[in-house]
C-alpha cells in the first residue's frame, strides 16, 4: 500500500497535470483580449495555489511544533518539506507570472501588493531554509525555525496591506473577469494534477527529512555540517 502511494501518486499526478495542460493548450478557447498568452494561466495559477497551500502547511506545522509540549520530529520534518516544496512552487509561479506579465502589462514586474508580497514571501522562506542549514543542533533548529516561520507568515498580510496603501497613492489595479466554463474545467484539472504532484513531492521530501533527523540523532558526529573545522569555529572562545 505504502509503495503503491509512493510510486503511484507522482505518476497519476503527472498524468492528470499533462491532461489539464493539454486541455488548456489545445481545447480551451483563447482569451478574447490576451489571446494565447492567457493559456499560461493553467500553469501559473495552480502553481500559486499550491505554493500558498504548502506555506500554510508550514505555518500550521510550525505553530503545532511550538504549542505541543511533546512535539515530535514529524512536525519539524513536515514544516521543512512544506517550506522547500512551497519555495520551488512559488518561484516557478513567479517566473511564469513574469512571462505572462511582459506581453500583457508590457513589463515583467510591477510593484503591486500581490507581486511584492510574493517576492517577500520567497525571500522570507529562503531565509528560513538558510537558517535550517546553519544550525546543527536538531532541537534548536526545529524551535528556532518554527519561530522564524511564524514571524515570517504573520508578516505577509502586513506587507500586502502596507504595499497596497503605499501604491494606492499612485494607481489602482482592477481586472474584473468573466471566465469561460471550458477554461474553468482546464484550470480545475491542472490544479488537481498539480495538487497530487505536490502531495507526492511533500511526502518524498518528508521521508528524506525524517531520515536526516534519525541520522542526526543516531550519529551526530558523522554529519557533514559537523566537520572538525566547523566545530572549532563554533566553540565559544573561553579558555
Amino acid at each position, binding site marked *: 500500500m505504502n509503495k503503491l502511494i509512493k510510486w503511484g501518486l507522482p505518476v497519476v499526478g503527472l498524468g492528470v497535470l499533462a491532461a489539464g495542460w493539454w486541455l488548456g493548450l489545445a481545447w480551451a478557447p483563447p482569451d478574447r483580449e490576451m489571446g494565447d498568452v492567457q493559456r499560461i494561466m493553467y500553469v501559473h495559477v495552480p502553481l500559486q495555489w499550491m505554493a500558498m497551500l504548502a506555506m500554510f502547511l508550514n505555518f500550521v506545522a510550525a505553530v503545532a511544533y*511550538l504549542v505541543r509540549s511533546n512535539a515530535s520530529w514529524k512536525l519539524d520534518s513536515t514544516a521543512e518539506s512544506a517550506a522547500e516544496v512551497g519555495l520551488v512552487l512559488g518561484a516557478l509561479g513567479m517566473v511564469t507570472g513574469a512571462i505572462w506579465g511582459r506581453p500583457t502589462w508590457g513589463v515583467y514586474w510591477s510593484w503591486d501588493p500581490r507581486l511584492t508580497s510574493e517576492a*517577500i514571501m520567497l*525571500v*522570507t522562506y*529562503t*531565509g528560513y531554509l*538558510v*537558517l535550517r542549514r*546553519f*544550525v*546543527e543542533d536538531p532541537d*534548536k533548529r526545529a*524551535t*528556532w525555525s518554527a*519561530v*522564524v516561520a*511564524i*514571524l*515570517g507568515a*504573520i*508578516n505577509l498580510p*502586513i*506587507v500586502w*496591506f*502596507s*504595499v497596497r*496603501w*503605499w501604491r494606492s497613492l499612485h494607481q489602482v489595479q482592477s481586472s474584473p473577469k468573466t471566465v469561460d466554463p471550458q477554461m474553468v474545467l482546464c484550470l480545475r484539472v491542472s490544479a488537481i494534477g498539480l495538487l497530487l504532484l505536490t502531495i507526492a513531492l511533500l511526502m518524498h521530501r518528508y521521508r528524506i527529512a525524517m531520515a536526516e533527523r534519525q541520522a542526526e540523532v543516531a550519529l551526530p558526529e558523522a554529519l557533514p555540517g559537523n566537520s572538525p573545522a*566547523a566545530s572549532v*569555529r*563554533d566553540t*565559544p*572562545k*573561553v579558555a
Partner: protein
Amino acid sequence: MSTSRPRPIGLIGATLALLRKDLLIEWRTRARLNAIVFFALATLLMFSFALGPDTRLLEKNAGGYFWLAILFASVLAMGESFRVESENACLDGIRLAPADPRAIYLSKALGNALLLIALGIVLLPVMVALYGVKVVTGFVDLGTVLLLGSLALSAPGTVYAAISSNARARDVLLPLLLFPLVIPALLSLAKATSLVLQGDPMNQLGSWLGLLLGFNLIYWGVGFVLFPRIIED
C-alpha cells in the same frame, strides 16, 4: 541589592535591572554606539555618492536614506547585543539568576531601541547638513516617527539576533532574516519621514503612524510570547 531576597523580583523589576546592566556596559565602553554612529554616517555619505551631486534628489529621498542607514546600523547593534551575553555563558547565568526570559527579551529590545533612538538623534543634524532637508511639520512629529521606528526595528530584530547569535554564519543570517520582515515598517517610516520633512498637505502622517503602531504591537507581542522558546535549552 545588599540584602538577600527570598523571592525573585517581578517582570518589570527584572527588565529594569537587566536594562540598567546593559546600558551600564554600553556606557562604560561606548563601543557599540561609536561603531554604529560612524557606520551610519558613512552610509549616509555613500548614498550621496551613489546618487551623484543632485541635491534635490537627495532631499526628496532623505527619509528613505535616513532609515536605511539606521536599519543597516541596527543589524550591527543588535547582533552585538547578544554577543556580549554569549561570552563566558552570561546568558545562562542570567537565566539561572533566575530572570524571567521575557524580561531578558524586553530589556534587550528596549536597550536596542534606545540605542537606535540615540543614533537617530545624532544622524539628524548630519542629514540636515548633507542633504539640505528641513523639519517642516515640527519636532514632535519627527520624534514620534523616530520612537516608533526604533521600536519597530528592535522588536523583531532582537528575536532574530538571539537566534542568529548562536548559529553559524550569524553575520549573514541576521540581515537575511530581518530585512524581509521589516519591509512594512521601513516603507511606512520612509513615507512618514518624508511627510515630516516635506510637509503634509493631505494629512497622511496619522495613517502611517497608525500602521507603525500596529506593526509595533504585533511584533512586541509575538516576540514577548515566543522569545522564551528561543533561549530555552
